[in-house]
């Protein structure tokens, strides 16, 4: 009976995957549609400072302390609601950057003859684990609000810089290889 179910599942899985591939947007294009220049734009030093300020504001405690001390309960609730929305939006952008970095990676290695399957597998696990943790943080944000993650500011900044570094490096082919060659 389990063998029958397994075989039926194989059939269904194949059909589901084919439907997904048929519905995939831009799959007939010769190049990767999701690697647009604007997606890969690296933030400047100015925007980096701006970003740090943004993070301090989103997760910092000063605004909340002020609101808590000097406003009504209704205003406090409104503040928390808006901050939650902003924090979720920030997290979504972070995930999007990680996704773009990973897409850039797979777009480059898929044509590489040096691809190491085991390393690729580990990388995929790392990536999906990262995405899962992002999901966990999103859940904490939804349940506890941004104030529950106040200690995140510094780490979030490092994470953001780290991902940006990855994208910067990925956008400079010469940085990856000492021995590039034309295929």
């Amino acid at each position, binding site marked *: 009976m389990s063998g029958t179910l397994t075989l039926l599942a194989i059939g269904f899985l194949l*059909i589901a*995957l*084919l439907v997904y591939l048929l519905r995939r947007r831009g799959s007939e294009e010769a190049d990767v549609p999701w690697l647009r220049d604007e997606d890969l734009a690296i933030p400047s030093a100015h925007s980096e400072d701006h970003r740090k300020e943004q993070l301090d504001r989103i997760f910092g405690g000063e605004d909340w302390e002020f609101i808590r001390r000097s406003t009504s309960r209704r205003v406090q609730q409104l503040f928390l609601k808006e901050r939650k929305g902003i924090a979720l939006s920030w997290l979504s952008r972070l995930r999007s950057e990680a996704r773009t970095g990973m897409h850039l990676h797979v777009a480059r290695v898929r*044509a590489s003859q040096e691809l190491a399957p085991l390393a690729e597998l580990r990388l995929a696990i790392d990536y999906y684990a990262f995405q899962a943790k992002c999901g966990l943080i999103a859940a904490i944000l939804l349940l506890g609000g941004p104030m529950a993650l106040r200690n995140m500011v510094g780490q979030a900044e490092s994470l953001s810089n780290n991902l940006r570094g990855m994208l910067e490096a990925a956008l400079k082919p010469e940085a990856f290889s000492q*021995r590039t060659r034309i295929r």
Partner: protein
Amino acid sequence: MSSYALSFWLAGVALEGTILARALVVGWFKKCPFFFGYLASVFVQDVFFLAVYSFKFKYYKPIYWYAEFFSLLMGCGVTWEIFRLILGRYPGAGRMARNVLAIVLLMVLTKGLAGAWNGDIPWTATMVELERNLRAIQALSLIVLALLIAYYRVPLGRFAKGIFAGYGIFIATMVMTLTLRASIGQAFQAAWVFVQPHCYAASLGIWCVALWSGERFPVEQSQSKIEEDYQSLALLTKRSLIQAREFLGRAIRP
């Protein structure tokens, strides 16, 4: 045979003939010999079977199974050709596919041998079960290919997509109908006789639509991109992701 079944059979032959005629005109036989060879063999079989069914019915069943296994062997070639067609320009993804496929086939083989050793799984108990198992291996190969296409975002041309989708749907429905036929038995025979030709007709329809477009055959052109040092790239991406994960881990600690 009912007039509906006969007209369906003839429609299938007509569709196969149409695709083959176009392939001959455009010159696709050289580019995809296994796929069009497979289609040509099915076309010949269909015409031949129609004659046998009509005039010498007692020979129909044994001939059917011989032809079915010949098609099965040709189908293995088609599966290989789909891999070549889609991953030919992407040696990295192709290498990954070979490795994953080797692991999957090793697992299937080990399970099959273990089952046969214990006497649990009579692999060749019936022709239906044997064909089902071999088709299931093909289905697993196509699942591996589909997953890699999705993961590596391999662009699919209309031609490759059409062949893959048509053949994939044919194999998936074959696995399911053969499984139900082997599991339920004769009670499913009537449904099988009805469902199987319709599934194959759906595949023929997909091939007809996909191969009729004016797309140029995807020539295996060399990409004028600089190949990166894989190790550096993989290490960099991995390090970044591990660090990012650690930061997130610290963030959620109280």
